[in-house]
C-alpha cells in the first residue's frame, strides 16, 4: 500500500515538473484552433460530407477535448451516405437532397477549412469560387487612346472556373484554405493535407498522379505562409499511412500468372482484364518510395514549424498487423478492430469505402493526435474513450458487408463518385 502511495506521489511530482517546463498551456495553444485539410479532416464518409460526419471528424474531437472548438460551414452533400441508403434510412427525397448537396448552415469565416479531395496545391490555390485562383486569360480592354481614337489593349484577367461542390459549400466566399487561415490567424494548426498527393494511386490503380516536385513545392509554400501569420503557438501534422494497404484494395493473384496482372486490385472488381486494374509489386515499390519521401517532408516541416507529429503510418501498420484493442471501463471487449469496415462480430475502423475512418476510427485518430500534442507541448488533453466511440458507432454496431451489395446500382455510382473525387 505504502509503495503504491509513493509511486503515486512520484507520478504527481513528475506531472507538476512536466507542466512547469511546458512552454504553453492548453488554453493558450487552443485559444483559436484552425484547420486546413482534406476529406479526413472534413469528415467525408462513404460517399458524402454531412453535419453528422463533420462533427465526428478528428480536428473537431481534439479541439473539443482541449476545451475549445472550431467552426465550419456544415454540408448536406454532395452525393450520398451509402450506409444510410443500404440500411433504408434515406428515402428518395433524402437521396436527391444529398446528390445535389448544399449547406445545412454557414458561418461568416470558418476556422476549420478542411475540404474533401484537397491536397496542398488546392489548399493554396482552390477557393470556394475558383478551381485555381492563379488562372488567368487574355481579354480585350477598350479605352480612348487619344481623344479621337477608341481602341483596345490585351490585359490579363482572372479566369475563374467553378470549383467542385465540396470547395463551394465548404469555403463559400472565404478564399482558399490558406487564405482562410491568414484571416483567422489561429494559435494552433491542424495542418495535414498530404494524403491526396498519393491516395490517388490506390483509387485509380495508376501512378500518373504522383508528382513529388509539386508536393514539395506546395507543402513548403503552405508552411511558409502559415508561419508568416505570426499567430501560431503550435500545431500538429501526421504522416500518411500506406495507401496500398487500405481496405479499398485487396490481394489478387492472376490465375494465368500474366506479368503485371497480380498485385492489389480494387475490392469491388470481380475480374482483372488488364494490368491497369492492379498495382503490381513494382508499382507498389514506387508508391512506397514516394510515401517515404512525402512522410519525411511532413516530419521535416513539423520540426521546422515546432509542431507535433503523429505517425499515422506507423499507427496504421500496427492496426493492420495487430488490430486496435477495444475495452470498456469494466473490461468488456468486443475484440480488436481491424483496418477495414466492420463486419458481424468484427469491429472495424473504416467506413464503407474502405478509405475513410468511421466515427470510431476518427476517435482513434484523434487520440493519436492528442498523444502527440501532449508529448510535444507537455499538456494533458484528455483522450476520447474509444469504447464509447465504438459503442455508439452505427456502422460498427449494425454492420453492412458491402461485398453482399456489389450488385446494387448505387454501388457502381458510388465507385464512380469516389474515383471522380480522389483519383
Amino acid at each position: 500500500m505504502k509503495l503504491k502511495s509513493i509511486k503515486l506521489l512520484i507520478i504527481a511530482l513528475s506531472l507538476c515538473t512536466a507542466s512547469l517546463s511546458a512552454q504553453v498551456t492548453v488554453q493558450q495553444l487552443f485559444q483559436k484552433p484552425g484547420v486546413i485539410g482534406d476529406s479526413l479532416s472534413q469528415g467525408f464518409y462513404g460517399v458524402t460530407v454531412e453535419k453528422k460526419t463533420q462533427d465526428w471528424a478528428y480536428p473537431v474531437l481534439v479541439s473539443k477535448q482541449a476545451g475549445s472548438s472550431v467552426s465550419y460551414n456544415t454540408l448536406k452533400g454532395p452525393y450520398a451516405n451509402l450506409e444510410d441508403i443500404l440500411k433504408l434510412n434515406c428515402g428518395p427525397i433524402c437521396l436527391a437532397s444529398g446528390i445535389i448537396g448544399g449547406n445545412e448552415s454557414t458561418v461568416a469565416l470558418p476556422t476549420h477549412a478542411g475540404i474533401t479531395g484537397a491536397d496542398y496545391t488546392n489548399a493554396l490555390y482552390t477557393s470556394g469560387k475558383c478551381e485555381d485562383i492563379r488562372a488567368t486569360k487574355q481579354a480585350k480592354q477598350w479605352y480612348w487612346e487619344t481623344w479621337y481614337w477608341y481602341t483596345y489593349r490585351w490585359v490579363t484577367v482572372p479566369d475563374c472556373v467553378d470549383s467542385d461542390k465540396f470547395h463551394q459549400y465548404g469555403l463559400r466566399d472565404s478564399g482558399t484554405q490558406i487564405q482562410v487561415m491568414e484571416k483567422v490567424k489561429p494559435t494552433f494548426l491542424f495542418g495535414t493535407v498530404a494524403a491526396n498527393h498519393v491516395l490517388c494511386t490506390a483509387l485509380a490503380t495508376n501512378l500518373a498522379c504522383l508528382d513529388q516536385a509539386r508536393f514539395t513545392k506546395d507543402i513548403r509554400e503552405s508552411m511558409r505562409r502559415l508561419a508568416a501569420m505570426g499567430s501560431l503557438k503550435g500545431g500538429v501534422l501526421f504522416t500518411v499511412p500506406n495507401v496500398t494497404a487500405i481496405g479499398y484494395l485487396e490481394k489478387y493473384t492472376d490465375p494465368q500468372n500474366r506479368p503485371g496482372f497480380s498485385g492489389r486490385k480494387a475490392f469491388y472488381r470481380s475480374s482483372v482484364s488488364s494490368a491497369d486494374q492492379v498495382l503490381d509489386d513494382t508499382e507498389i515499390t514506387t508508391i512506397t518510395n514516394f510515401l517515404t519521401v512525402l512522410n519525411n517532408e511532413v516530419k521535416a516541416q513539423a520540426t521546422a514549424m515546432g509542431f507535433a507529429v503523429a505517425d499515422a503510418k506507423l499507427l496504421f501498420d500496427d492496426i493492420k498487423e495487430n488490430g486496435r484493442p477495444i475495452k470498456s471501463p469494466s473490461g468488456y471487449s468486443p475484440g480488436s478492430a481491424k483496418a477495414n469496415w466492420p463486419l458481424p462480430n468484427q469491429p472495424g475502423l473504416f467506413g464503407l469505402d474502405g478509405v475513410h475512418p468511421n466515427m470510431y476510427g476518427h476517435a482513434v485518430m484523434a487520440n493519436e493526435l492528442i498523444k502527440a500534442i501532449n508529448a510535444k507541448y507537455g499538456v494533458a488533453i484528455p483522450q476520447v474513450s474509444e469504447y464509447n466511440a465504438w459503442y455508439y458507432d452505427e456502422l460498427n454496431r449494425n454492420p453492412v458487408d458491402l461485398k453482399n451489395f456489389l450488385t446494387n446500382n448505387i454501388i457502381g455510382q458510388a465507385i464512380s463518385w469516389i474515383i471522380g473525387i480522389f483519383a
Partner: protein
Amino acid sequence: MNKKFLVTCGIAFALIALAFLFFPAKDKKKTAQTNNSTDVNDTSTRTSSGFSNFSDAPNPGNEDSSLEAEAEKLWPHLAKQDTSAKKKEKVREEWNAFATKYPKNFYIPTELRPPMTEAEAAEKRREIDIVSKIDSKLAVFEVNARKSEPGSAVPKAPAKADITPEEQRIYIGFKTKELESRIQLIEYSIESSGINGDQLTIARKDISAWKKELTDLQEVERKIPNS
C-alpha cells in the same frame, strides 16, 4: 505565476498523499461495487440496445457516468438519431411511392425490386467492372491533362481503341441510365416540395448540365460501331 503553480502543485500533492494514506480500503470497495453494478446494468441493456453486433456490450454510461456526458459533447447527432422501425417503414413507403411513378429508376433500392437471377447478378458485376475500368482510365487522362501546359499539344486518339465497342456500349448505357434516373429523382423531389431554398437553384442548374451531358452521351452512343 510559477510560484503560484508550485504552491498549487504542493497542495494537490499533499491531498493525493493523504487520500491514499487514509482511504485505500474504501476506494477498493467502490471499484468492486462499480463492477457489480455494471454487470447488472449490462444485463438490462442487453435486450434494449437495438444493436445487432455485440448486442451484449455494456452501455458505457452505465459503467462510467462521465462517458455519457462525453458522448453528448462529442457526437451531438446521437440525440437526434432515429433508427426506429417506424422511420424505416416511412422510408420504405417513400421509395414505394417513387417506384410506382418510376418503376425502372436506377436508384430504387434492391430490397424493393424483384430478386436478381444469378445470371443477372453476374451481369451486374461485369457492368461495375467495366464502368469502374473506364472511369479510372478517364480519371488518369484528366490527371495527365492537369499537368499539361496551356496551348500544348492535345493527345490524339490512338489508332486502335483500347476498349471494345461492347464495353463502351455498356459504359454509356450505365451512365445514361444513371443520369436519367438522377434527373427523375431530383424532379420528383422538386415536385414533392422536398427541395427548397438554395438547393432548388442548385438543382435547376444541375439538371440543365446533366441534360446536356445526356445529349453528349447519346451522340457518342450513335458513333459506336457494331463490332
